[in-house]
């Protein structure tokens, strides 16, 4: 069924189709319409779930941690300060290996306060042990959120589905809602291998010593380092597993095919623009325009940012003349985080492209397709001998 709705409603629809049983949320703009819609589904009985209206985001994730540990599929969503207020709980969720799914409706972080969009919130949490997926349109919000539950539950690693506040959350677009039966066929009921309860008494997340210890049977139990090592190994498997899951989703629902990175006009592109989220949609138009000018421009959207698909990106970008990374977040004193990661991935390749990093859109500063065109032209025109460079778009000085 095709509907014409907002990105937040697309996300709510996905959570309903995924049959989440416990939803905990605290209001923060621009996430609110998503969780309001879920509370409506629960109240009017179209969704069989517990809705816990908590007093903070820290508690929202605490409720989900409790629910997942006790054996029920859980969901929350947040933005900006809400995500950062959860920071401790983000690490806890990943360390406890809980299969959590959360939508992050991307928004800038204060001070000064800004309710508008950028990516600083989720990018700053990239090292918390969560898988991060960035989506470019409403259909991807819905599809990725459903697939995220499969991914989280297969790997016991939490997943953030990140989408741009306002650009996606509050705009309306047509998208297709799959049948409940198709989603049920794709996503089995929640089962967690360490469900806590009287039938399976255990003490979860206890104190670990620096070294490993013997258990009461005299067998070696892994310690903190081994648990972290295992999280890293399993996280890296997410690239293959998500690709398989996406294939199964395509079979059941009829959509999918490029879950890790998405490309547009990349086959013969000499210059590739790289971005996260909705910027990638806009960059497709930009590439089409520049192609008319005779510039061989392509676009690559990084859909899965953690784990970082370095090999896929290296294969896609090695040998290009320019790689131009557009980012709405910044690791202060360094560069955009995606740019750093990408540059590190391309370091060992013999045909490393010249790279540019453009920072734009912070705190909702507007940007136009013409801004992207200009930046790409500027990057292309630079003398290769000058090497990589960093610039800002839309800065008033």
């Amino acid at each position, binding site marked *: 069924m095709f509907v014409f709705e907002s990105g937040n409603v697309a996300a709510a629809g996905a959570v309903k189709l995924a049959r989440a049983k416990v939803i*905990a949320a605290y209001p923060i703009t621009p996430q609110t319409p998503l969780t309001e819609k879920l509370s409506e589904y629960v109240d009017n009985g179209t969704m069989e779930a517990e809705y*816990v209206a908590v*007093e903070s985001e820290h508690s929202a994730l605490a409720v989900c941690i409790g*629910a997942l540990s006790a054996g029920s599929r859980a969901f929350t969503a947040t933005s900006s300060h809400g995500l950062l207020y959860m920071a401790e709980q983000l690490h806890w969720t990943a360390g406890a290996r809980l299969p959590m799914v959360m939508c992050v409706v991307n928004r800038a972080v204060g001070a000064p306060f800004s309710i508008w969009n950028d990516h600083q919130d989720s990018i700053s949490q990239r090292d918390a042990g969560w898988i991060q997926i960035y989506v470019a349109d409403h259909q991807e919000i819905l599809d990725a959120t459903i697939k995220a539950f499969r991914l989280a539950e297969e790997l016991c690693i939490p997943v953030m589905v990140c989408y741009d506040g306002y650009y996606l959350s509050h705009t309306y677009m047509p998208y297709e809602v799959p049948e409940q039966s198709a989603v049920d066929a794709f996503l089995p009921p929640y089962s967690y291998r360490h469900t806590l309860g*009287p039938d399976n*008494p255990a003490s979860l997340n*206890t104190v670990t010593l620096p070294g490993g*210890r013997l258990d009461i049977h005299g067998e070696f139990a892994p310690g903190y380092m081994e648990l972290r090592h295992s999280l890293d190994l399993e996280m890296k498997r997410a690239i293959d597993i998500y690709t398989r899951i996406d294939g199964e989703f395509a079979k059941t629902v009829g959509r999918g095919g490029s879950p890790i990175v998405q490309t547009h006009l990349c086959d013969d592109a000499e210059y590739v623009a790289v971005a996260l989220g909705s910027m990638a949609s806009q960059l497709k138009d930009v590439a089409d325009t520049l192609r008319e000018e005779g510039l061989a421009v392509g676009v690559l959207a990084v859909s899965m940012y953690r784990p970082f698909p370095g090999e896929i990106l290296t294969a896609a970008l090695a040998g290009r003349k320019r790689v131009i990374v557009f980012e709405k977040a910044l690791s202060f004193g360094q560069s955009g985080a995606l740019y750093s990661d990408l540059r590190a991935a391309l370091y060992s390749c013999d045909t490393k492209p010249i790279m540019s990093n453009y920072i734009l859109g912070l705190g909702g500063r507007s940007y136009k397709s013409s801004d992207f065109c200009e930046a790409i032209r500027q990057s292309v025109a630079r003398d290769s001998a000058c090497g990589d460079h960093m610039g800002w778009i839309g800065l008033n000085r």
Partner: protein
Amino acid sequence: MEAKKTQILDLCDEELVHPGNRGCAGCGLNILYRIGLKAIGEDAILVVPPSCLTVVQGLYPITCSQVSVLNVTFASTAAAASGVRAALRAQNNDHTKVVAWAGDGGTADIGLQALSGAIERGEDILYICYDNEAYMNTGVQRSGTTPRGVLTANTSIGGKRERGKDVAAIVAAHNPAYVATCSAAYPLDFHDKIAKALSMKGFKYIHAHTPCPPGWQMEERIAVSVARLAVTTGLYVLYEIENGQMKLSEPSAKLLGKKKLPPVSQYMQAQGRFRALTPADIDSIQNEIDTKWAGYRRQMTSAAA
């Protein structure tokens, strides 16, 4: 509702806390935990934030407890317990008990917001705060419930300048299903209040005064008798609140008939942590106790009239 009075021989034989755990000698929490779990039983999920209980329960991969425990972040106890309850409700499980068990720091300070939220939502959980009146697990720093004048690692010269928070009163102001105060010196009272709380729906709160020999600077062997002195001198009052009505529990109710209570200086002089108090400070605390009990007696008289 009149609570059943359990005698020591009536307690269930099964031990849900194994001996040889990491509790200190004379630890009041160990008494409460052992007797409390007998009242709670095995069909339960405990939710525990960082506290001495985390250490008592054991270091991975060994635990002293026979009951399921979810260890959670410091500020999140009541919220995580709400999540466990929500999951059980979603699974139509109405028999498994959800018990949050936290210290005074985890309750009165960092966990207060989540606690308040959970009470306001009427979550069907029992929340037990064992109050040893400081952050004992991190080396005895002041907490919100540390009484005025107490020497701690970060009030080491003149003692804490501020009064302790009355957490049970803060909780009671939310009008939950049940509020009770307890003491590790009266474990059977604690046992029966847990049993009573768990028979009720909605949010239940038990605040338990808990002696800590290293933190209170006293010999291990006198821990229980010092905790008892807190009650018998009238300093720490044992009561229950149901439907907004406060009722003194037996150990405290007995004091109503006494013309004069034993001096609170006995309690203070037994512990090193009060040694910064001057005789005038102790007199002032004694006056507060006397005024409080005069009030209780007046209430009794007017209730009888």
